[in-house]
């Protein structure tokens, strides 16, 4: 299971998207549309598995699109997001 790090804070900049700052390392990351959707998923539910996130993203971001990404593509996107965010301490693994 994954949750947001208590040291991560996100700043919404309207048209300029969202920036996530790690309060201890002081490194910041600009989120693209997909990453923003995944990050805000943690507003609705505190903990997620990678599979749950992939299902959530597929359900909310690619509804009824014939030429949209496949489930496998979405799963790859979520895994890349989790690897980046967890690797930089913005998401933490919880039991």
């Amino acid at each position, binding site marked *: 299971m994954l949750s947001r790090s208590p040291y991560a804070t996100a*700043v*919404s*900049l*309207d048209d300029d998207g969202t*920036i996530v700052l790690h*309060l*201890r390392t002081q490194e*910041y990351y600009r989120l693209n549309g997909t990453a923003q959707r995944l990050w805000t998923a943690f507003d609705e539910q505190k903990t997620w598995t990678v599979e749950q996130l992939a299902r959530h993203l597929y359900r909310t971001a690619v509804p009824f699109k014939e030429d949209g990404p496949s489930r496998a593509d979405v799963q790859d996107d979520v895994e890349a997001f989790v690897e980046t965010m967890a690797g930089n301490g913005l998401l933490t693994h919880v039991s």
Partner: protein
Amino acid sequence: MPAPIAYTLGRKAPDAPPDAFFTKEMRSVGIWIERSAAVPAALVTRAANALALHPHASAATSSSSTDALAVTNALTIEVRLGKPHTTGPPSSWNCVAADAQGTVWRTPEGVRWEGDGGGQVQWHEDRGTARLWVENPRTPAGRHAVASGLRHALTGALARLGWTPLHAAALRPPPNADSGASVLLVGPSGSGKSTLTAGLLQRGWRCVSDDQVALAPSDHAAPRVGRLSPTLRLCPDAWTRLGFQKAAFSSSATRVPLADGAPSDPAQKWSVPLGTLDDHAPARTAAWAVPRRVIRVGIADTPTSRLVPCRAARLLPTLLSQSLPPSVLPTAVATAQTQRLGALLRHADGFELTAGHDLYEAPGRLADLLTAARTPSRASTA
């Protein structure tokens, strides 16, 4: 046991002008001094005034800072003789920030600041207390350690009480000016904020501060910024080049030492108290502003200056770099500070100024660039 002395500092001064920033909102910061430290009251007052804070209660006595200050104050700074207690070896400390004034460590006891003058500030977040330790405040170096330590502790206290100290200049436009909205000039030391401020002053703008401001606590509305440095500091040649003469100000317009025993200012700048600017009509200062333009300032070796729009995502790292580092603050305080900077950018238009030779010669020309860059959606908002 000798009785300590308590000073309470804040902006609720009875003689504060009606438009003073924070007059109604400011919670106090108590400063408690171990009597044996023998720190003169004038030194405490000067350190507080350096952040545009004013004393509003006279000395009190009590056997402890808790008795003296807990009822009336949200946060206490204690000045003590000696060195802070340490449980872990220095090798286990984690350096989290450093600047020209000192180094910040995360120790087993919490966040600790070691000033280059020898003072040390240890934050005790659970008690709402910062302890400033000095070894010998009777020497010039010791007095400098007290002054710089108090300044550091007071800045941290303001952040913990909900304000966001920011290294920036803020100005209001002249009434009915085409150049529209209040501006915030952000950039590192030496980027020209004070020179541009003086230039805009010549064009009728009103100065909130040329170097240090504080954002008021407000997560959603456009934040107000108020003054944290009460002087305008420029090199003598800059004053002359801009056409200001010392005689144009009151007799207090002289170089003001930062503190007794402080290292001499390498730039030998003249500090002019902003209050003296208002000796001349019309008023050249303002207590606060709501910036609708945030301008990142930089100097370039180019003949012509440029003022171009800049995305908020590029400005946020600049604002973060000129505020207190999040890693030295409690998580909740750092989060609130970051959100407040985001709110500032959401309510303002972002610009990047590349200041060239023309602005060096005539910094007031920034007013023309601001007029040319007028944004219809937010024009005429003070």
